[in-house]
């Protein structure tokens, strides 16, 4: 009885081990199962999803105009102070002074891509970009100014 158990154990163990080896053996002999996407080589075809949150950008049109009014809703919405907006008073053609952004500072090194700023923005001035290759040697390069130099507020955006 003992001997029978002994050999049954051996038989079952060897069987289970061979089953495991069958799985690895299957994949070894079926190279088409390989899942690898070769990242730097597939860069041209690599497409991020539309909603992928890579960094916050401020789109500018061809006249170097953006839609940011400087209302600071995004700055308030941001949970960890990633966005700092410095505003200035701009003289309008009609002589009135109007608030406009001077610099839109975005700390990429702090950003957690939570999308709160984008949903908070009343004028769709900022959006998430699908870039992800942000590696740098110097951390200071991660502090970004989103409004392009000399850019203006787009007509009709309040």
């Amino acid at each position, binding site marked *: 009885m003992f001997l029978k158990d002994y050999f049954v154990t051996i038989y*079952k*163990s060897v069987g*289970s*081990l061979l*089953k*495991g080896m*069958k*799985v*690895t053996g299957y994949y070894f002999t079926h190279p088409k199962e390989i*899942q690898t996407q070769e990242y730097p080589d597939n860069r041209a075809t690599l497409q991020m*999803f539309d*909603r*992928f*949150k890579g960094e916050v950008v401020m789109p500018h049109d061809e006249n170097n105009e953006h839609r940011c009014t400087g209302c600071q809703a995004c700055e308030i*919405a*941001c*949970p960890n102070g990633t966005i700092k907006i410095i505003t200035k008073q701009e003289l309008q053609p009609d002589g009135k002074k109007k608030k406009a952004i001077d610099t839109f500072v975005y700390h990429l090194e702090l950003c*957690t*891509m*939570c*999308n*709160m700023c984008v*949903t908070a923005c009343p004028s769709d001035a900022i959006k*998430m970009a699908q870039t992800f290759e942000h590696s740098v040697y110097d951390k200071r390069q991660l502090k970004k100014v989103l409004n392009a130099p000399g850019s203006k507020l787009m007509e009709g955006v309040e």
Partner: protein
Amino acid sequence: MSLLGEPELTEEGEFVINIGPQHPSTHGVLHLKVWLDGETIKKIQPHLGYIHRSIEKMSESLSYRNFIYATSRMDYLSAHINNQACALTVEKGLQIEAPPRAQAIRILMAELTRLSSHQLWWGCTGLDLGAVTPFFYAFRERELIMEIMEETCGARLTQNYSVPGGVMYDVHPNFQNRVKDVMKQVKSRFREYEEALTGNVIFEQRTKGVGYLSAEDAISFGCTGPTARASGVSCDIRKWFPYDGYDKLQFDEIIMTGGDSYTRYMVRMEEMKQSVAIIEQLIDNIPEGDFQAKTKMVIKLPKGEFYQRVETARGELGVYIVSDGAASPYRIKYRSPNFSNLSALSHMATGAKIGDLVAIMATIDLVIPDVDR
């Protein structure tokens, strides 16, 4: 080598090794002080705080909309379920309910999260026990789920998709087809998982009868989730305190009574199948309508205390908010599943070998940032 303190023999001639904070099998930065007799463990003392990020304290200075994102970093493998718990608590305080569509989306996402978390756990259990290859098979399916997450939520791991009142935006038009495809593939792989690891005699030997936790001990240590359910304790929050419409769904609470590492393993394997079943029930029946209830720009909870619990991939997560009527919580406390589950580790591992300790930690499925918060 210890990272803290020189190698030393204590007075009684005991052999003490420090496992962690940097150690491949602690799944983070847990520090275990282990008293050994040869290879046998005499005592374990976990040291915490190596990833204490003061999320609770930090949440007190954030508004009700903003504090949710930080909980993604707590139990990052069930990030969506954490967010859901916070959103539900705030909703409870506001006495609103998310629209049916939002609830269905939340459940789908939560189950996908649970599935991906269990898959990662399965791979890492293999890895901890020395079998490297299962890790890659598990991640193959996990990546598919990550793609679903990414397409709809825009992030792979820390989605920040649940907001008070519903979800941040509607699901992607591709969502349903993609989920169906992925579920088909995930289901077809379960057999392979069993062949590669579950049935393996070495794996069975390593886990069967190891790290026994009785039902009484599971209750007294406050264990929840698969860890407690493997000891025969019924504690699935989805059944006991249904939220977001879990009560309308057909699924089983997996309860087994073995109490050892192997049972904990089997409970999780079965839970994966249940998650797939839930997703398949719901994926064709997402109600139409709004994905978000109307909430005010600045949320203020009425004065009082609010508590909501959910079932994460590791157990019961409770969110306790004390509000003084201001725009940010007065006090937040998270009852995290891993902290209680970790407390049972010393009890389970005493008398086992070092190799068993690794197996036990793998089957409890610890996420250390959730312990320390």
